[in-house]
């Protein structure tokens, strides 16, 4: 059952993650400037460190993350795969979905992508999030799953 090909997320998701990484850089930039001004270290060290961290946060990690993520939707279950270091591969049968959310933060809205969140009644893994979907796709998926939930309970 793990042979089925995983659907990739929207490429815009990588951009969003890059921007999020860039936002995380801001406090680090402040620290770098402070280090530079106080000149405890040789002048070139803070700048180099900053470039290294920036490369990891903005270029390397989003790429790895994007590659490690994927999902597969079949007629009665959704499989979500994620994790660069810590890998998680979760399957939620639609028959156990209690309610569904489609969420967007401002950054995601700029790029027209959304997160689909499935809530179950379980204590562990009670909500499973699938980020990086095209907004229209996320809504379609939500409707599909909802239709399934409704059909089953009738």
């Amino acid at each position, binding site marked *: 059952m793990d042979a089925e090909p995983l659907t990739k997320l929207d490429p815009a998701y990588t951009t969003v993650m890059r921007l999020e990484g860039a936002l995380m850089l801001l406090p680090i930039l402040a620290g770098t400037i402070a280090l530079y001004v106080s000149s405890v270290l040789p002048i070139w060290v803070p700048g180099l460190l900053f470039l290294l961290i920036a490369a990891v946060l903005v270029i390397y990690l989003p790429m790895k993350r994007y590659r490690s993520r994927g999902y597969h939707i079949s007629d009665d*279950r959704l499989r979500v795969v994620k994790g660069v270091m810590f*890998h998680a*591969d979760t399957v939620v*049968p639609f028959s156990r979905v209690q309610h569904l959310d489609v969420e967007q933060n401002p950054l995601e809205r700029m790029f027209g992508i959304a997160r689909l969140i499935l809530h179950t009644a*379980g204590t562990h893994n009670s909500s499973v999030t699938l980020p990086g979907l095209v907004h229209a796709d996320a809504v379609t998926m939500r409707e599909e799953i909802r239709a399934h939930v409704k059909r089953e309970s009738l």
Partner: protein
Amino acid sequence: MAPEDGWQRVNKLSMLVQLVRLGFQAIIPAVFLLYSSASDAKNLSTVGPIIGAVAMLVIGAVGLSTWLNWYRLRYRVGDSDVKVEKGIISRQARSVPYDRIQDVSLEQKLVPRLLGLVQVKFETGAGGKDELALAYVSEAEGERLREVVRALVEGEQAAEPAAQEAEDAPIAAATPPGRTLFAMGPKRLFTYGLFNFSLVIFAVLLGAAQQFEFLLPFDLWDYIGSFFNNEAVNDAGTYLSSLDMFARIAAILYALGVVLVLGVSTGVVRTFVRDWEFLLERTAKGFRRRRGLLTKTDVVMPVHRVQALVVKTGWLRRRFGWHGLSFISLAQDSGSANHDVAPFAKMDEIAPIAAEAGFSLPDETEQWRRASPKYYTDKAMIVGAVVTLVAMGNIVFGNALAGLAIALLAAVLVLREYFLWNFDRHALDPAQVLSRRGWLAPRLQVASRVKLHSVEIAQGPLARLRGYCDLRFGMAGGSFSFDGLALDDARKLRAAVLDSIAEVDFAKLPR
């Protein structure tokens, strides 16, 4: 109060309970305060009246707020929900629909019990503080509330399949004849208590000493210090060190004996207080459990709400064949997610209870599987390496004895992983998933396949390198996971479990 529109207040006596509770909280510090100020007798005449006036003021304010709290708290059992409104200035109104109420449980602490009051809790599965509770109503009112709400809950759920026995329901609800499944008499309780060795009393004494130390007129630690520096004790010390080996061993044995006796008796007392008159019954509504000496609890668990069962034991009690059974359900049991249903029983007593809940305990025919040996090898290597490093550090810095002891510990820990690999196992029934974990005190967990909600395969960096993983099940009210399975095995298990989950819709699960 006129309950014409259904709104009611809780019993007036609950004000008394509240005052008694507050009084106790205030009395202990007050006594200490008086004691410490009385040691300065001169000040007492000037400070006395002020203390008196403040005390009167505090008592008045507490009394007023208790009354206001009572006056502003009201509840109503309506057609579709239970409503509670409370708060003096900022009002809080809460409504819980019947189809979300898992159960209604009654609890009696000591003081309310003397006054014939109960606390009624409406369990929704929200857990802990978020549960709706009414403190306190009279015993009769509590029983009535429970019956009414339960009948309404049942009605709400029974309405869908068929309107069968609609007229029998209230009659059956009035007096459900219980069938005793499990009970513990004083003799059984005593045996149980013997295994509940606990040194909590020392912690309590130490905690109390720290809590109230500042109120004592002397410095406690100085006092203890001076006690040991005292000539007499000093003499005793030199005397003791001059004794021969035999007498010293005797003294140590005596001290150990005292600790043992104290620990065992604490265990017995605690067990008696918690589990006095333990009674588990099968009623028409489900399992009903009553227990408690000072705080009496009365809990009913509907059979279909049992998500999984856990059979636990201790390393010592297991040698005598004693095990404990608890249920994992949506509702909470005084803080813990598991409901004890037979805390101290033989396996042949546990099996019928499990069967009653719709589970079967594993027998010899069970197809047990083991986790990946790589998982245990890795764990043993990591634990062994860390502890050995500590041991080496100790030896290098001249603590040879401690170092050797720690090295021994490392060996034991490594050996433990080997035994764990031998003893940890899991299995898949047509209807349930089972896991048994632990070496000296194995813990058996049985969950119903259709009652699981999701399945996850999780891997850390090491696990990916070595090809094993954790298989985690989403279960309501608890956690359930198999650690360190071989990847193929986990995938097969997941596929099988998912198929049986997907077959049955959540709404069609027996409720």
